[in-house]
């Protein structure tokens, strides 16, 4: 009876304390992951970069770096504003890494930049959860605590994925997201490549009686390049006479779907902030070029952690799918563009 009365008056409060305890446990784990990430980043910089002064302070400053996105009240032209801010950010990050690790070559600078970005992402996740935890405890508001407790399992999955990514980046291992880049690398291997636009390479490859311009981000450093810019350039160089564009990318799978399933579709298969997708869509619209997509399904954890065997094997299936699409959708003698999208870390060409 007493228990029943207590539950009526204090049930919600007890529930709230249980939730706070749960968040506290996850926060402790997040703090550990964040600190480990920071330590791995500093250790890698010391190993590869051979700095004369201790980079710890500079790494700490890097982790607190903020990027202020452009104002969207008047959205006209926001793509270019966003692209500019992201370009400035990337240049700034690379300069910071070069200062922290003077002995690192271009490949290692890219890998270290990716490592630090993953460490910064872990820092942000930790700080946001800590913010809601403290706010919830201060206000004792069930709704503040509840909203964070409800999404906590997803946040923890994301944090663990970033922790795995950090290790992969620090060693320069290929990651699941690089599946598209790997397909392009397999297609262009053994052919002459040239640098095109920012951090991308292109190779002219004879394929099934057609001429294919195969594009990927330049590896083996951690790089996504600007495939949108590269595709636009190839289209312009060919005066828009492109029969089809095939984009290959890793895509997030839904729970229940099989890992590394290869699927086809239409549209620009590319993630990121959207600026590259916008450029591709503008270019294909101008010349009315059909665009096809081949995607390799994986979850967020597999996308940013070292490439799984299933995904590696799926790249071979994707190569065959690309060839099939070319045979079915174009005629002999046509010119096509094949773009392998994704981070080219650990993938050469």
């Amino acid at each position: 009876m007493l228990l029943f009365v207590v539950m009526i008056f204090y049930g919600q409060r007890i529930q709230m304390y249980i939730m706070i305890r749960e968040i506290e446990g996850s926060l402790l784990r997040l703090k550990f992951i964040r600190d480990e990430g920071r330590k791995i980043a500093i250790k890698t910089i010391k190993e590869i970069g051979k700095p004369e002064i201790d980079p710890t302070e500079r790494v700490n400053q890097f982790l607190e770096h903020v990027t202020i996105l452009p104002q969207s009240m008047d959205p006209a032209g926001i793509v270019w504003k966003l692209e500019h801010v992201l370009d400035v950010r990337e240049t700034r990050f690379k300069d910071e890494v070069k200062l922290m690790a003077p002995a690192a070559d271009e490949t290692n600078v890219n890998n270290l930049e990716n490592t630090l970005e993953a460490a910064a992402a872990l820092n942000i996740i930790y700080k946001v959860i800590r913010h809601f935890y403290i706010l919830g405890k201060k206000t004792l508001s069930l709704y503040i605590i509840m909203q964070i407790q409800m999404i906590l399992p997803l946040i923890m999955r994301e944090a663990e994925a970033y922790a795995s990514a950090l290790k992969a980046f620090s060693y320069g291992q290929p990651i699941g997201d690089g599946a598209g880049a790997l397909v392009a690398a397999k297609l262009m291997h053994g052919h002459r490549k040239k640098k095109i636009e920012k951090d991308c390479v292109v190779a002219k490859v004879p394929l099934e009686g057609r001429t294919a311009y195969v594009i990927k981000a330049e590896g083996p450093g951690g790089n996504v390049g600007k495939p949108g810019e590269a595709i636009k350039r190839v289209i312009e160089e060919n005066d828009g006479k492109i029969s089809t564009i095939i984009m290959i990318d890793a895509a997030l799978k839904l729970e229940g779907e099989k890992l590394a399933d290869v699927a086809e579709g239409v549209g620009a298969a590319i993630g990121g902030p959207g600026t590259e997708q916008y450029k591709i869509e503008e270019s294909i619209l101008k010349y009315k070029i059909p665009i096809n997509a081949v995607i390799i399904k994986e979850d967020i954890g597999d996308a940013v952690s070292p490439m799984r065997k299933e995904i590696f094997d799926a790249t071979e299936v994707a190569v065959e799918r690309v060839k099939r699409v070319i045979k079915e959708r174009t005629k002999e003698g046509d010119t096509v563009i094949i773009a392998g999208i994704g981070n080219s870390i650990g993938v050469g060409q």
Partner: protein
Amino acid sequence: MGGEAEKAVRRFSSIVLIVIIVALVLSSTALYQAYELFLSNDPTAGYYLLIGFIGMALSAYMLIQTKRRMKRFTLKTQPITTTIVCSKCEFKNVRNFERGDYILKELGSCTKCEGTMMISAIYREVKEKRKEEKIFT
């Protein structure tokens, strides 16, 4: 793992520990009371026995939970395999990943036929702990 991590592992609420200890003491008292009452043939002994057992079970459960939380956190390093293949005779060499390895990297000549050795694959193999849900396939 450094000192900071270990500190984080050891940190758990002292209030919870006090609650557990108090609950344990009260449950033990209830059990002792039940024993005393049972000897004097008091019918309320059963109630004390029940309260004592429930208290014991709850405090044991809470203690186990606290211990579980104390488990060391680790970031696992996954074993990554590098496969090197000769482009001429297809001689294959599989070894652990080393820093500087990347797919399509050329690694000198083959020991068998003097063809070019190249890294053809880098991946990790994951042994699934449990089968995916097959009901809704």
